[in-house]
Structures are given as structure tokens and as C-alpha cells.
């Protein structure tokens, strides 16, 4: 019986000691002492809170260059991100959703996998990095699933340099080329395109050699792209220059591969009031010029009480690459994370083909139940004529309701 009483008492003792260690001292008398004649706050121990009572300490300067320390490591670093998301969706014919419309699909989706990276830094001028994604199901499913879908190498490159002025990255790598958020027509180098519904996801890059020469705030690049090249004639070249003028960054680049339409691109990023502005344009030549351009903005607002953490992004795309017609697109998203300081996040995403009038709008509400458990409710409404870009099925307008949960995902 005494033992039972002892346990809560010990827990209380330990938690109070831990709390005392963690809490940040902000008592000014404890931090700065008291003037002579003034009473110290009862219980405040000036000596222990303020060291030897001196405000200033002479530092023993570290002689090694910390910037090079970060570039080397005696050990191979292994890390990554684990994910396990389950999602169930119900798609209905028509805008009324479950209220009177026909159920046309109800798939259950599991996304179990991990992205694992290896980072080796034997010297400050040489590094090897590799990244693979392993995804469930972990078998070929009777020949219906490629090995590449289970075990996918997304990056494998080395970094080396010439002096402290020219830097090389050689291998399969994600390339930083365009500046668009939902669309990036100028990005001719990466293997995958931006998914407007997941615009911050890492893109898969090509096998290439990047040569980078920073000059102050400016940068010069030359990419030699080997992806899918069977002979030296099929190797692509892509030079790019980034210039900083005031608070604006301007990029000028070109892409050339024998047999493909050569292209020239330009990008611009700047700030206007509290908005981040981005503009991107590209023109390719194949018997005639094909221009495409995009412009957009992003805005973030956070109040001092953390009640309103708002993010808004919007972008317009003019796609002149089509052979038959020119197309116009728009996309926008707004999110309110930690609504009124709670664990709820509200979001809304819109994507539309302005030329054929089709599109989708998807409001969502997510709830962070506990630290590693999220629940998301989403309604996705696709509108437009039958056969339009975002309503390709004979069903025309569709409403999809989905519930998804993330179980214990995170970085390691």
C-alpha cells in the first residue's frame, strides 16, 4: 500500500524537477539582479541564475572554420520520411453528391512507404547522396507492377568543386529551373511536372551534370542533360543565368537538344507589399514560335496571437504549346492552419481550364488528433461539359467525398 502512495509522489517530484529544468527564466530580478537597497524576490537565487554575476563573459573563439565542418562527416548519414496514409473516397454522378446521385466509384487507397536517403561526406569538397522511395505493395502483384514502382531511385549524385568558385553536381538530381508554384511551363528539365494538387512535392529530376558559378548574389549555371540519351547527339544543353537587381531576381535560360524544339525562358521573382510575385515565360521554336507564360503570387499572414495563420497562392497560365488552340488555366489555394489556435486546418483548392470551362474545387478540413495522427475530410467537385479536361468521363459533373488518415508519418 505504501508503495502505491510512493509512486505518485515520486512522479510528482520528477515532473516538477523536469519542469524546473525546462522552464525559461524571465524574472528580471533573477536575470539582472537587484539594485542595492531593493529587496530581492523571495526565492530568487541571483548567483545561480546569473552565473558569477557578470553580464559579460570573454569568449574563447573557435579557431576552426565552422562552414567547412558542416560539409564533412565521419559517418554515413541515413535518414528519410516514413508515411502511412489510408484514404477512402466515394464518387457520385452529379453535384448533389450522396443526396440522390448515383455512386460511381468507392476506392480505398493505401499509401505505405518511405523515402530513405544516404549522405556520405568523406571530404569538404566531395559528397555522394542517394535517395530511394520504397512503396507498398512490395511485390510485383503477379506481374502487374514494375520493380521501379516498388523501389524507385529518385536521386543519386555527387558534389565536387573546382576551387571555391565552380561547383559541380553530377548524377540523377532534382533541378531548380522554373519559379511557378502550380504550373511551371519553363521547366523542361525535370522528368516530372508539378502536381497542382501537391505543388510543394519534390520533382524527379534527370540524369545531368550541373555546373554552377556563383558571383555575389548572381548565379551562372550550365546543365548537361543525359536523360534518355542513347548517343552524344541526344544530350541536351541548358545554360541559365540568375541576376539580382534590387529585391528582384531575374532568370534567363535556354534549352537545346538536337531533334527537339529549342527554347528560351525567363523568370522573375520579387516582392510587392507583402506579396511574393513570380512570373515565368518560355518560347520554343518548331517551324513557328510557341509561347507560354505564367504569373502568380503567394501571400502569408500570421497574427501575433497565432489565431490566423493564412496562406494564399494563385496563378494564371497561358499555354501556347498546343498545336490546335491556345489554352488558359488558373489555380488557387487558400489555407488556414491552426484555426483560432486549434488543431484544425481548413483549406480550399481550385484548378480550372479557363478555355473549356471545366475545373475542380476541393474544400478540406483536417484535424491533428494527436501528434502523429491526422484525419482529413475532403469534398472534390469536378465541373464542366462531358469530355472536357477535368470531366472526361461520360458522367460529366462529379462529386467525390473522401476521408483520409495519416498514421505515424514523419521524418527520421
Amino acid at each position: 500500500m505504501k508503495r502505491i502512495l510512493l509512486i505518485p509522489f515520486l512522479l510528482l517530484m520528477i515532473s516538477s524537477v523536469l519542469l524546473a529544468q525546462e522552464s525559461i527564466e524571465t524574472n528580471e530580478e533573477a536575470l539582472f539582479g537587484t539594485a542595492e537597497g531593493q529587496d530581492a524576490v523571495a526565492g530568487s537565487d541571483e548567483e545561480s541564475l546569473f552565473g558569477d554575476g557578470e553580464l559579460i563573459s570573454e569568449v574563447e573563439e573557435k579557431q576552426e572554420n565552422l562552414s567547412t565542418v558542416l560539409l564533412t562527416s565521419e559517418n554515413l548519414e541515413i535518414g528519410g520520411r516514413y508515411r502511412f496514409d489510408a484514404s477512402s473516397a466515394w464518387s457520385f454522378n452529379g453535384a448533389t453528391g450522396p443526396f440522390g446521385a448515383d455512386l460511381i466509384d468507392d476506392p480505398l487507397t493505401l499509401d505505405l512507404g518511405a523515402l530513405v536517403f544516404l549522405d556520405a561526406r568523406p571530404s569538404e569538397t566531395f559528397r555522394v547522396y542517394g535517395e530511394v522511395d520504397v512503396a507498398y505493395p512490395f511485390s510485383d502483384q503477379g506481374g502487374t507492377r514494375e520493380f521501379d514502382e516498388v523501389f524507385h531511385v529518385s536521386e543519386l549524385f555527387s558534389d565536387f568543386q573546382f576551387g571555391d568558385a565552380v561547383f559541380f553536381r553530377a548524377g540523377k538530381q532534382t533541378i531548380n529551373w522554373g519559379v511557378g508554384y502550380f504550373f511551371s511551363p519553363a521547366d523542361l528539365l525535370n522528368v516530372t511536372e508539378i502536381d497542382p494538387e501537391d505543388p510543394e512535392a519534390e520533382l524527379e529530376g534527370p540524369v545531368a551534370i550541373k555546373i554552377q558559378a556563383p558571383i555575389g548574389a548572381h548565379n551562372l549555371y550550365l546543365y548537361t542533360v543525359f536523360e534518355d540519351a542513347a548517343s552524344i547527339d541526344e544530350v541536351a544543353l541548358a545554360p541559365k543565368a540568375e541576376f539580382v537587381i534590387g529585391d528582384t531576381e531575374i532568370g534567363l535560360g535556354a534549352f537545346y537538344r538536337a531533334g527537339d524544339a529549342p527554347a528560351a525562358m525567363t523568370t522573375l521573382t520579387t516582392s510587392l507589399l507583402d506579396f511574393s510575385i513570380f512570373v515565368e515565360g518560355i518560347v520554343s521554336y518548331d517551324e513557328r514560335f510557341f509561347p507560354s507564360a505564367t504569373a502568380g503570387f503567394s501571400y502569408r499572414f500570421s497574427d501575433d496571437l497565432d489565431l490566423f495563420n493564412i496562406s494564399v497562392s494563385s496563378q494564371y497560365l497561358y499555354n501556347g504549346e498546343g498545336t490546335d488552340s491556345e489554352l488558359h488555366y488558373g489555380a488557387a489555394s487558400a489555407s488556414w492552419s491552426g484555426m483560432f489556435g486549434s488543431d484544425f486546418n481548413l483549406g480550399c483548392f481550385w484548378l480550372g481550364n479557363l478555355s473549356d470551362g471545366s475545373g475542380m474545387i476541393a474544400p478540406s478540413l483536417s484535424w491533428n488528433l494527436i501528434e502523429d495522427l491526422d484525419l482529413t475530410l475532403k469534398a472534390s467537385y469536378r465541373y464542366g461539359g462531358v469530355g472536357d479536361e477535368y470531366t472526361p468521363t461520360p458522367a460529366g459533373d462529379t462529386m467525390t467525398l473522401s476521408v483520409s488518415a495519416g498514421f505515424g508519418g514523419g521524418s527520421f
Partner: protein
Amino acid sequence: MKNRIVVFILLFMIVAGALFAAELDGEKILRAIDEQRNFTDRDFSSVMSMIREDPEEGVEKKVVQQFRRDGEDKFVFLFLEPTVQKGQGYLRIDDNLWFYDPESRKFSHTSMKEQFGGTDARNSDFGASNMIEDYCILSIEEGTLGKYSVYILDLEARHNEVTYPKRKIWVTRDRNLVLKSKDYSETGRLLRTSLFPSYAKAGDHYIASKMIFVDELVEGKKTSITLSEISLEPLPDSVFTKSYIERVNR
């Protein structure tokens, strides 16, 4: 009548002279603060350990490597901890501030006014100090803070580029070290109290080696920052580039 005029002129001169002297002293203090805190002639590196207390979210620790070259308005911040933020970085060159996200491998322009990596500190807390150009002095008085004799300065922003439009700072009289700052909104609402209880002397400069930022709007929310591994060794030019941030991160 003549005597009255002479007395009046004398009084006016004394008052005007006193006000002028106060203005001069205040500007001298702000200039001294800038000179001591800015490493205009040397590079500066250190590791910042940040502990954030939030009554709802609990205690969170972040570790950030910082490199500064104040003479050229440049800095680099790299998140070393926690794992979920590891690899994120900020690069500042003049008026340009880029945020690097290792997940997408993208750089994006961001604002100096934004909160620094989800703490109560602001990006502007870590760049070069420019008090003399950012603020004008409304009043100056003598006082004490704990056992230290201080000047207490009321400041108002000269332009809207600063994070806090109004500030009140407590500065030691002997070495012009800022011990405390109360930061206000345009309407005079107290937003944040900053405490600087210890300084490190590096060369001829003083740098706050411990900083405490108290969020005055959310009770119990505060961030403590401690500096370690301080170095004034020259840094290669290549550190203040996008290339360095990409190479040093995953």
C-alpha cells in the same frame, strides 16, 4: 521688462540645449549599439540553441547554425535540429532573403518580418543592427534594471520596413548593452518583451549570448536563444550562396 526677456531667453536656451544634448546622447547610444552588435569588419559564426515554450504545444528545441557578414548585409542560417526541419535554410543578400526547403529543393523569396522558423524571434532579430537609421528617439531617461544603471529610450520607427513600429529599450550606461526591450504595435499595444541577460565579448564586439523573447499576447509563450561555438574566423565567399546551402543540406 528687459530682465524678464533676458531670463526668458536664457531659460529657452537652457531647455533647448538640454533637449539637444539628450537627442545627441540618445543618438550616440543607438550608434554605439549598432557598432557593438555589428561585425562590419569581420565574419561571425555561431550555433544558436532555441528553446520554445508554448502552453499548448509544450517545449520544442531548435538548433541553428548561423554565418554572418554584416559588412555586406549577408547571412546564412541552417537548421540542424529538429529532424523535421533539418536542412531548411535562409540566405540573405542585401534586400533579398531566400528560404530553402530541402523537401522540394526550392528557394523562395520571403520577408524579413516573418517569424523565424516558428519561434517568437523574427528574422530581423538576427541581421545587422541598424537602430540609428530605423528609429528616432522620443525620450531618454536614466533608471536601473536590477543591479545595472541604464538609460531607458523610447523609440519610434522612421519607416515601415521594421518589424516593430515602437520600442522601449533599457541600455547599460557603461557599455551601451541592450538588456531589455519592449516591442509595441503601431497602436501602442505591447507585443513582445525581449531580455538579454548575458553577453559574450568577441574581439571588440559584444554579442548577446542569451536572449529571451516573451510573447506578451499569449501567456506563457516564450523563446530562449543561447549562442555557442562563437567564431570570428573569416568565412569563404562561397558560404553566402545558394550553392553552399544546397551542398550542405540533404
